[in-house]
């Protein structure tokens, strides 16, 4: 396999073949956990881990799985990996795992994972599949982080605990005391999950304006 192809596996899902905005996979969790940048980052890492290793496992097993029961085999592999993630989150980041609540369990039903298994890992070599999993996980994480960034910044006026807008935003930094930074008040809508739908819609709009090939004809 050539060098170019390996790179494509990793970079394609970031833009032209993004799992969320182009393949329409894994939308639910993208909407629900993008309320703060920290949650988005943790979720991105967790999903990248699960996609990469489930792709690798299924690809290694692909010649031994009878096609009629492959769904169940895939689900068992995914469920095993998600249980690992869920238990380690509880052990090391308990507060965060409370906040993410059912959404960690719902990684199992994140269509990105199943979708990539069906579309790629079932017919490709282990190394390629692993890279495809990593690429798609990062592509998913990228959208999640963009949405999380916008929502947390404009919804609460802070980012990872550092306040930018309003009265509290002093920190002794001169430019935060003036103009837009001083006048802007939190946008309550941004805190609600509903805002991420609009943000995603706009992201899709921007992406398709840049790349006319992605436009829906129907």
């Amino acid at each position, binding site marked *: 396999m050539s060098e170019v192809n390996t790179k494509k596996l990793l970079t394609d899902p970031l833009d032209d073949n993004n799992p969320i*905005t182009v393949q*329409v*996979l*894994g*939308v*639910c*969790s993208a*909407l*629900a956990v993008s309320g703060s940048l920290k949650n988005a980052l943790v979720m991105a890492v967790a999903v990248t881990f699960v996609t990469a290793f489930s792709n690798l496992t299924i690809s290694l097993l692909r010649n031994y799985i009878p096609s009629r029961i492959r*769904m*169940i085999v895939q*689900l*068992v592999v995914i*469920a*095993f990996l*998600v*249980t690992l993630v*869920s*238990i380690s989150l509880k052990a090391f980041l308990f507060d965060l795992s409370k906040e993410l*609540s*059912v959404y960690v*369990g*719902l990684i*199992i*039903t*994140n*269509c990105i994972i*199943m979708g990539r298994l069906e579309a790629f890992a079932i017919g490709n070599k282990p190394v390629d599949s692993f890279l495809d999993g990593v690429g798609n996980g990062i592509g998913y994480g990228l959208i999640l982080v963009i949405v999380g960034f916008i929502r947390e910044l404009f919804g609460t006026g802070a980012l990872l605990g550092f306040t930018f807008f309003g009265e509290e935003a002093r920190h002794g930094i001169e430019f935060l005391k003036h103009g837009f930074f001083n006048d802007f008040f939190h946008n309550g809508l941004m805190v*609600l*999950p*509903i805002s991420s*739908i*609009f943000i*995603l*819609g706009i992201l*899709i*709009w921007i*992406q*398709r*304006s840049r790349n*006319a090939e992605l*436009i*829906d004809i*129907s």
Partner: protein
Amino acid sequence: MSDLINIFVKAAFVENMVLIYFLGMCSYLAVSKTIKTAVGLGAAVIFVLAITAPVNWIIRETLLVEGALSWISPALADQSFEFLGLIIYIGVIAAMVQLVEMVIEKFSPALYMSLGIFLPLITVNCAILGGTLFMIAKEYSLAESTVFGIGSGFGFFLAIVALAAIREKIKYSAVPAPLRGLGMAFIITGLMGLAFMGLMGIKL
């Protein structure tokens, strides 16, 4: 009885799976191109949710919670198997979806063809597993979780049929080209979600 009606209304409208919690979005966005397929998928989801919620409840109560297996040996009295929950719930759901697939294939081959890949993908429809996980989180009884399952399935049905109807009409409008299809579906969903948020204050 009025309790159960409350749970149904709450699951279908006030806590709508799709428009409030945004679960099951993938098939919701992908299958909502025509009303006909949307009705078919909606009905299948109601059926699967109505069965998996109570079945998973029974499995959890009799096998998984702490001390549930103490009749085998006293040593198991303080043993909990909840960590196996996810794997078992998803297994039950996969089996149910397989059943629905066979029924639809037998009785309505046309619908079977039009649903295509999204029929087996009900297995990974987050709304279904979400139904089970929410039911556990809310500590419902058996009757309550059955009604909750039917209610949230009905909510999904309502949302997907409404979106399909709007999308069928919006084809004739002058939407900017890059926004057509998926982009517009997102924005319509957002507006529908805003409307449903108006129900949020209702205490039942």
